[in-house]
């Protein structure tokens, strides 16, 4: 059975290549990158063979601990949780639990990250090529450490997947739960920067970490090399019990996931509350705006794409606090404008085949485009204004305000116009309605990347006038250019917005059925 699961994973990986050349290219690039990283790490580990034991121990333990943390965090942060062997698919197969666990854990190694981690971990034996016990300890530690990596990542993805799959929970808390994860990047970066500022502290840190579940397994080789058998056996005990605890947790979570189908009904509710449909104008455009706004609030896929917006100032403030200069903060406005405007570039793809309703009711394309864009504008405009003005209370360089405001509004309106065209013509692969926003979407990844990056490149060209004016202002130092930028950004932006909505609407009128056919492919 274990062998079956392994070959299934292997087969799925291979069939993934067959499905689209885009994925093949993606994995080839990923593979080359991983190969470079692995080669560097392997070289470092071999070089450490001739370093003094203290340095080698510090590097191996801290590196290993970082690997475990990465395995826990990356699948969530990169929204790349590997769901090819989604445990809920085995619900009806009656596979004994022990075999399922073993199979899924081993299958976790098949793939670029798993193989790379295993290879690098095993090569810590080269670092400790200083005696038989040290090598054996390093190998044992590597096996324990890599298993912990894989099982920990399984525990975390299983836990969040079953949480994120219960709809009620998802609606309320997808934002709350993933905020700390998104912020993990700057926090970790800050800690590392603080640490690397005082290298003398590192060996001490490594010694402490080596007594925790994160570092215990990676410390075995070093401890045995310096002859500390007692510490080594205690740490082996820590590492083994860590793995056992993780396995038990995974076992429990998986058992629950297998008997809890991803459905949770709500209580019956009588009608009478039309919500936004009662507030906005009773026209096709108003109804589409009301529908889109309801989705921004209720659909976790939209919420997930907005998470980053409130976190932008936090990340930038954090970085500014470290560098001591707040002038970087002025790009908050244009950046938020870009993120918000571009968030509707895949709007029709998010609808999936529900778009049939728009097609069958004979909505005119321009109403469709305008309703969606206005819904986004309702909250995007205030947010962008606040983000554009806010930083100047910290920097005090008010002379820059008009220029930054012009650029922000230009990006917002131009982006909305362009996104209206893009989503009327091209589909992107996005998570299906009802799926976790962090589940890997089906469909052609290469086309999605081409559409998204091509669109962004065009957007960059379209806002060049505003960008050039910002540069002119910084060269001449004349605030007049800022006021010109404000005028140009607003007028040009709104002009492009109107034409974007019009062109998108016309394309939608002409190619509605073809767009719907494209949408029907990914369902």
């Amino acid at each position, binding site marked *: 059975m274990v062998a079956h699961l392994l070959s299934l994973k292997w087969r799925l990986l291979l069939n993934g290549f067959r499905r689209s050349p885009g994925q093949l290219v993606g994995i080839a690039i990923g593979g080359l990158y991983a190969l470079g990283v692995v080669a560097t790490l392997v070289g470092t580990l071999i070089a450490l063979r001739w370093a003094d034991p203290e340095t080698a121990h510090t590097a191996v333990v801290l590196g290993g601990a970082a690997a475990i943390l990465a395995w826990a965090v990356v699948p969530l942060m990169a929204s790349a949780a590997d769901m090819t062997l989604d445990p809920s698919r085995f619900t009806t197969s009656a596979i004994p639990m022990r075999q399922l666990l073993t199979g899924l854990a081993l299958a976790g190694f098949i793939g670029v990250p798993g193989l790379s981690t295993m290879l690098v971990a095993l090569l810590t034996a080269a670092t400790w090529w200083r005696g038989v016990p040290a090598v054996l300890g390093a190998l044992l530690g590597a096996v324990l450490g890599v298993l912990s990596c894989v099982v920990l990542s399984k525990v975390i993805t299983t836990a969040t997947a079953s949480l994120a799959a219960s*709809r009620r929970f998802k609606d309320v808390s997808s934002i709350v739960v993933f905020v700390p994860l998104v912020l993990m990047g700057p926090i970790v970066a800050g800690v590392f920067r603080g640490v690397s500022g005082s290298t003398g502290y590192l060996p001490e840190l490594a010694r402490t970490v080596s007594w925790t579940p994160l570092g215990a397994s990676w410390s075995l080789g070093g401890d045995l090399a310096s002859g500390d058998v007692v510490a080594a056996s205690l740490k082996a005990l820590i590492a083994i019990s860590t793995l056992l605890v993780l396995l038990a947790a995974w076992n429990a979570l998986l058992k629950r996931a297998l008997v809890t189908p991803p459905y949770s*009904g*709500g*209580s*019956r*509710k*009588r*009608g*009478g*509350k*039309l*919500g936004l*449909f009662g507030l906005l104008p*009773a*026209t*096709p455009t*108003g*109804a*589409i705006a*009301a*529908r889109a706004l*309801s*989705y921004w609030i*209720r*659909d976790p896929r939209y919420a997930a794409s907005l998470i980053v917006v409130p976190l932008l100032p936090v990340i930038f403030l954090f970085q500014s606090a470290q560098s001591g200069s707040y002038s970087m903060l002025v790009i908050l406005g244009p950046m938020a404008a870009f993120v918000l405007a571009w968030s509707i570039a895949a709007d029709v793809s998010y*609808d*999936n*085949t*529900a778009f*049939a*309703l*728009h*097609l*069958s*009711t*004979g*909505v*005119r394309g321009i109403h469709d485009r305008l309703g969606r864009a206005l819904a986004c504008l309702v909250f995007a405009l205030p947010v962008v204004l606040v983000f554009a003005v806010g930083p100047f209370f910290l920097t005090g360089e008010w002379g820059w305000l008009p220029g930054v405001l012009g650029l922000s509004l230009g990006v917002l309106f131009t982006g909305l116009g362009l996104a209206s065209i893009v989503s009327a013509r091209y589909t992107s692969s996005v998570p299906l*309605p*009802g799926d976790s926003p962090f589940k890997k979407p089906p469909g052609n990844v290469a086309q999605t990347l081409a559409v998204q990056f091509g669109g962004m490149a065009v957007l960059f060209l379209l806002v060049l006038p505003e960008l050039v004016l910002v540069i002119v202002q910084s060269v001449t130092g004349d605030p007049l250019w800022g006021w010109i930028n404000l005028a140009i950004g607003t007028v040009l932006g709104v002009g492009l917005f109107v034409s974007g909505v019009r062109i998108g609407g016309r394309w939608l009128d002409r190619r*509605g*059925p*073809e767009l*719907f*056919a494209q949408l029907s492919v990914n*369902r």
Partner: protein
Amino acid sequence: MTVQLPGSPHTSPVPALALRGLAKRFGGKIAVDGISLDVPAGSFYGVVGPNGAGKTTTLSMATGLLRPDFGTAYIHGVDVWAKPLEAKKLMGILPDGVRLFDRLTGEQLVTYAGLLRGMDRDVVAHRVGELMAALDLSGDAGTLVVDYSAGMTKKIALASALIHAPRLLVLDEPFESVDPVSAANIRGILDNYVGSGGTVIVSSHVMDLVQRMCDHVAVVAAGRVLAAGTVEEVCDGASLEDRFVQLVGGGNQAGGLEWLRTF
């Protein structure tokens, strides 16, 4: 061509739905192979066929959801592919295997369908209330559609198709996973609708249902119409199910699968 004799009962000369040489190919597979069909106004028309016969593809092309490779469709004389907006005003559609905007409540979804058609808010509100009551969904009007059962989802989709009082209803598998009580309920609504001059087209592979409910039927297989006309004409004395199997052919011999009897 039938010649209208003077004095004979005069049915509406323009068919509610006229398909003319509709054809569609997906890759190398021909899904619909030149279908022409007249659905008389005021009829309750059943389209039956085995799985993969091209029923859904044909209905999608007839309703403006899928562009045909050849041919076109006319709704009460309006060309669906030349004047799509005008044709779509005349019909209500229940497509099969299509998602709904299921994060709206049931009542919001039907309201949305009404407003998209440019209807007045008060008219929509009034009709939504009556539709929800008629389809026995009033108790769940405020529940999100994503939390509906499969049968309730069908019913809410039907309500969305009815909101603008269309002259033609095109329903793809309307009774799938609908419980018997609701099915009888829906049939009552559809019978009344036909009685007052509307036209209904349903696709199904439940022969009994079609024979009891419809007055006209077309048998479709492998992308072609094998027989079409009134139920009496097509059945020719036999039951629709027997006639269907006879027309479509095949019908695997009940041999094989001996192991299924060994337990």
